């Protein structure tokens, strides 16, 4: 399954030498603050450096050609480029090494723009640049050619979660010719979107979007859907995940309301039912176990709406206080026309909308939720959703008044600001409150009037305390991640402080987890709108399809490597290892004797180096990031020898 790719390097570089240093002016971005010629002059005095050149743009074709020619001529065997951040051009220059017939891993990058010329000026900038280049050269001198880790890929994707993101990801993958298994915990497809009616800001119906998407998924021959299904067993790595899926009848009360609604609707399997979703198949009568192999996994485990505590804004103390999802459901049963909205037979003359319920909670100001956490993030979708609902009602029932209590209006996306403008045009009345001075919901002492009073210190009227009688209070509740602690534990995937799953990098690798081969789609990652969730799902699907269609993956070889000439078999590294299955003690013959020694499974290794720190012999290191290399870098940072000779 795991193959070592044929070595990219030929011949083997000379140990500890022939480093070429290439310093970029970056069109003045670097050379305006750093004396590039002086850096080159001093770099030539660093041990192991055979040439140091500069170029106006090292990333340009002539700049790269300069490196390639030096490699091809045999003048240099290892390369340091000192330029902008490695996040921009490290790959560019590694590829230049490959084009020169070399190994991409005998390369080191010195960051002279973001971390020197843009933050320092004058002689100290040049001095610092020189030391960073010397440190990079010291590391480069010790680099050895590495081979990417090649892993064959099982030609199937597993999508976990049957909400919008999961459905979208499954369909996108199938349309790219990939086999997909979609696993959904509940009996239904559609997720939280099935709990809505019209979607902000465009007004599409949940029925239409779920119906179209789920219909296409169920009809696609490349997609297998398992509902009432959960992942019980997980092992493996990118390309070769092995999972045990179990299908069981859900616990009696868990989905009873939805099943009852489905039964009352008269709809059959595969038909969409509002506030239920779409049940593609009958509930299994007995436990089923399915063994599954997959090359990639997409997590689309979704979110749940924040559930306010009893007494939070009068929730559950007053029947007139409801959450936005509850309000939407009540609206579906309300008469569609009439001057005033009527809910459950009650005329709603005035309704309060309260923003940021369960979002943007501040330590020391807001009470912790029952789990002992605060949702400090903005849920991003609630402002648009509640204003959309207000507009909808106001335009159908013009006599119903809306009073909107907000901390900030965050109608941030395309078509959302228009919702705010439209709400103002619809005479929704806005009040602004400060964090810690949230509106209070009180019983109206005037028995003849509306049942509730909303008391607020209104920032817009310079702190005036106002009381607004209302018949209804709607809480714009935020999004929370679904509890998937079992999956997190099994898959060893990172979770952020906000309890959403944590991508590798929010901008550069936004749908990848640090566990290779596991991707993110939708609101398991962060609060998203439906459009954003589908966009993320599409991105994850394309990423997954790229892995599957290639048939194999090549992983960076920055993983642990045991030096058997030093290993004494203490087992400390295995004990310290953070990735199950990455390190093990195995029996092997050394010097005619059977001994226990550490062995790395490179595909499972995260490359974190937890093992490196605990080895008393320094017999284990991360390839390309060894302890000795770091020590040499420090040596060059503190050394003045090459400076004194300049």
């Amino acid at each position, binding site marked *: 399954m795991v193959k070592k790719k044929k070595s990219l390097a030929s011949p083997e570089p000379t140990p500890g030498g022939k480093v070429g240093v290439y310093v970029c002016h970056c069109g003045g971005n670097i050379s305006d603050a750093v004396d590039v010629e002086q850096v080159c002059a001093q770099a030539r005095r660093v041990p192991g450096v055979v040439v140091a050149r500069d170029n106006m743009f090292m990333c340009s074709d002539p700049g790269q050609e300069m490196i390639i020619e030096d490699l091809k001529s045999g003048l240099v065997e290892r390369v340091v480029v000192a330029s902008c951040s490695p996040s921009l051009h490290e790959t560019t220059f590694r590829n230049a090494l490959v084009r020169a017939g070399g190994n991409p891993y005998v390369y080191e990058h010195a960051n002279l723009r973001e971390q020197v010329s843009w*933050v*320092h000026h004058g002689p100290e900038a040049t001095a610092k640049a020189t030391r960073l280049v010397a440190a990079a050269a010291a590391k480069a001198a010790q680099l050895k050619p590495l081979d990417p880790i090649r892993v064959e890929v099982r030609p199937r994707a597993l999508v976990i979660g049957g909400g919008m993101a999961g459905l979208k990801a499954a369909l996108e993958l199938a349309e790219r010719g990939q086999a997909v298994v979609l696993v959904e915990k509940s009996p239904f497809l559609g997720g939280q979107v099935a709990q809505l009616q019209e979607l902000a800001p465009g007004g599409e119906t949940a029925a239409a979007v779920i119906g179209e998407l789920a219909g296409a998924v169920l009809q696609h021959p490349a997609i297998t859907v398992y509902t009432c299904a959960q992942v019980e067993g997980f092992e493996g790595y990118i390309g070769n995940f092995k999972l045990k899926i179990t299908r069981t009848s859900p616990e009696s009360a868990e989905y009873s309301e939805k099943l009852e609604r489905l039964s009352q609707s008269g709809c059959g399997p595969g038909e969409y039912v509002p506030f239920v979703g779409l049940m593609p198949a009958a509930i299994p009568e007995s436990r089923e176990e399915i063994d599954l192999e997959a090359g990639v996994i997409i997590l689309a485990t979704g979110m749940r709406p924040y559930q306010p505590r009893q007494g939070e804004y009068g929730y559950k103390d007053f029947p007139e206080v409801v959450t936005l999802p509850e309000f939407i459901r009540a609206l579906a049963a309300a008469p569609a026309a009439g001057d005033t909205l009527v809910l459950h037979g009650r005329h709603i003359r005035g309704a309060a909308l309260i923003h940021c319920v369960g979002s943007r909670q501040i330590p020391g100001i807001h009470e912790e939720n029952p789990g002992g956490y605060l949702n400090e993030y903005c849920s991003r979708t609630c402002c648009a959703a509640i204003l959309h609902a207000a507009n909808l009602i106001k335009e159908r029932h013009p006599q119903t008044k809306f009073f909107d209590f907000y901390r900030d209006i965050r109608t941030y996306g395309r078509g959302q600001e228009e919702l705010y403008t439209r709400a103002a045009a619809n005479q929704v009345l806005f009040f602004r409150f400060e964090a810690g001075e949230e509106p209070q919901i009180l019983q109206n002492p005037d028995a003849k009037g509306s049942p509730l009073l909303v008391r607020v210190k209104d920032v817009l009227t310079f702190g005036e305390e106002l009381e607004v009688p209302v018949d209804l209070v709607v809480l714009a509740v935020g999004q929370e991640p679904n509890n998937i602690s079992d999956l997190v534990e099994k898959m060893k995937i990172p979770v952020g402080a906000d309890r959403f799953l*944590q991508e590798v990098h929010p*901008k550069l690798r936004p749908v990848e987890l640090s566990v290779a081969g596991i991707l993110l789609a939708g609101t398991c990652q962060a609060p998203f709108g439906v459009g954003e969730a589908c966009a993320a799902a599409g991105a994850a699907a394309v990423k997954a399809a790229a892995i599957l269609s290639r048939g194999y993956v090549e992983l960076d070889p920055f993983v642990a490597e045991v030096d058997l000439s030093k290993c004494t078999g203490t087992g400390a590294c295995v004990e310290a290892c953070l990735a199950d299955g990455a390190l093990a003690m195995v029996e092997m013959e050394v010097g005619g004797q059977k001994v226990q020694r550490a062995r790395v499974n490179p595909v499972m290794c995260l490359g974190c180096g*937890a093992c490196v720190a605990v080895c008393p012999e320094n017999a284990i290191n*991360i390839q390309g990031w060894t*302890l000795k290399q770091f020590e040499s870098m420090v040596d060059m940072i503190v050394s003045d020898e090459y400076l004194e000779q300049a």
Partner: protein
Amino acid sequence: MGSAKPGGKILILAEDACAYPGADATGQGHMSYPADTYILRVKASVLFPEHFYLDCFDKGIAGIIIMSCGAETPYPGAYDALARRIDRVYALMKERGLDIRRLRLTAICTVCTRAFLKEVQQMHDLVSPLGPPGSERPAAA
């Protein structure tokens, strides 16, 4: 801002998934900070054994800031292991009479430019009067 000379060099171990891009973001904002700082890009700071820090001080590094990803590390469990190790390093520093403020464990995110600047400035302000490692009195710890 500050000069590289008076207090000695500050080593920053910046984790690749968070603090290193955070340092880049600081540069992209052209936010200046003392030049006596040398950033090493590391995958995870949990790689470094206790003796690495002590050796750095022996070599003349005046202060070390570990800019980790904190609890948001892409390597589950790495931060806890790192924190435990740093506790042990502090104990060893005390034994050697080194001021333990010379070593600081922080969490810096990809956009934590202000936190990055604050940490760097604080360490610079600390090591400038403190001088090279070993110059403090043992009681300083």
